[in-house]
């Protein structure tokens, strides 16, 4: 009887999805936010440029994937690396119809994967906007981005052509789902070691953030004390002057 109950519980536990964190990167206007809403099964594609952070949780097979969506504008990319420590893998979205910015995309991509907290993780590249006439096929994008150089930098990488904007009443582009499946499987291959690495990095980051917060609090408190001291001195000076004026010499 007892073992039956235990089995019941363990099977329940087995059913629970594995939590995984994946981050979207890519230039501004590549379609990261639209891609995320498509993955969520939404059709509302009226997004404003992201200059911040959003996260969405989507269950995919046995994985419960938390997606980080961050802005891709030039001024904002510097903040990406603050998130690398907590991710299992990343999705790089590239606008296949914007040939002029492929060089910039390549640079952003390699800057990311070369970051010590990123290197060795898995990367899915989605050659987005294939619905556009002027779009370049995925294999050409792969050449232009020099993806073969990724081999030594990531655990696995893959590029798939897709279109996040689905025509209304049409099913979602199957390539996206295929990509997510591929990514979660690659993550699964190194799951144990990845988790250990993430745990350590996140612990370090939390520690760092705590220190920074304490330092700020200390500075503000110090400044306040100084101001109060000054005000007090001022007050005393005034009182002294007053009493000096009142008492005749």
């Amino acid at each position, binding site marked *: 009887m007892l073992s039956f109950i235990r089995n019941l519980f363990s099977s329940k536990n087995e059913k629970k999805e594995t939590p995984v964190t994946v981050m979207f990167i890519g230039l501004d206007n590549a379609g990261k936010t639209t891609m995320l809403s498509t993955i969520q099964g939404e059709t*509302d594609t009226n997004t404003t440029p992201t*200059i*911040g*952070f959003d996260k969405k949780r989507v269950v995919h097979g046995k994985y419960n994937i938390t997606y980080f969506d961050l802005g891709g504008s030039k001024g904002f990319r*510097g903040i990406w690396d603050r998130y690398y420590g907590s991710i299992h893998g990343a999705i790089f979205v590239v606008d296949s119809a914007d040939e002029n910015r492929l060089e910039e995309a390549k640079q952003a991509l390699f800057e990311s994967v070369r970051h010590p907290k990123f290197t060795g993780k898995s990367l899915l590249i989605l050659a987005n906007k294939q619905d556009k006439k002027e779009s370049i096929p995925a294999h050409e994008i792969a050449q232009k981005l020099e993806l073969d150089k990724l081999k030594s930098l990531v655990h696995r990488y893959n590029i798939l052509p897709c279109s996040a904007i689905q025509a209304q009443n049409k099913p979602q582009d199957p390539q996206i789902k295929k990509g997510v499946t591929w990514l979660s499987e690659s993550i699964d291959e190194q799951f144990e070691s990845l988790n250990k690495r993430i745990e350590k990095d996140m612990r370090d980051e939390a520690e760092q953030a705590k220190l920074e917060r304490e330092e700020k609090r200390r500075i503000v408190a110090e400044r306040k004390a100084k101001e109060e001291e000054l005000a007090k001195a001022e007050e005393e000076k005034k009182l002294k002057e007053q009493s000096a004026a009142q008492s005749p010499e």
Partner: protein
Amino acid sequence: MGLLTLLRKLKRSDKEARLLILGLDNSGKTSCLRKLADEDISQTTPTQGFNIKTVMSSGFKLNVWDIGGQKAIRPYWQNYFESTDGLVYVIDSSDQKRLQETSVELNQLLEEEKLSGVPIMVLANKQDLLNALSAKQIAEELGLHSIRDRTWQIQACSAKTGEGLQQGMEWLVNTLG
């Protein structure tokens, strides 16, 4: 247009949200609010209590609460936290000396139970001033990257020229909608 989108759009038109504007004194909270409501901002004086205005944005009725930011009255902020749908946090981007102070205040707000999960729009205000820091610099200084429990966005803006304010509100409305 699919039936679902149509329904969603219809539903949207009678949507209402409660927004809270906070930030240090002199960051420009009241000016931002007045500018959004198309009012004159030249006569703005420090807010002693609070202002409420209803602003329409993308079919959303926004009830915006602007609370005074002076140090002595900051403890009263918590009286306004209840049932807040979105937080607008205003920063004087030209006042580098007080960035730490505003950062400490923001961190405290982030720990408030009643505001947990509430989306945050950080307005990097006073971009019309020459010495204003960029939105990215402000994001770094405030350590916004450590906010992981909710969605946030930073928008460079100027209550004086009105630049950026509408975009900021649109994002909030999109997020709430």
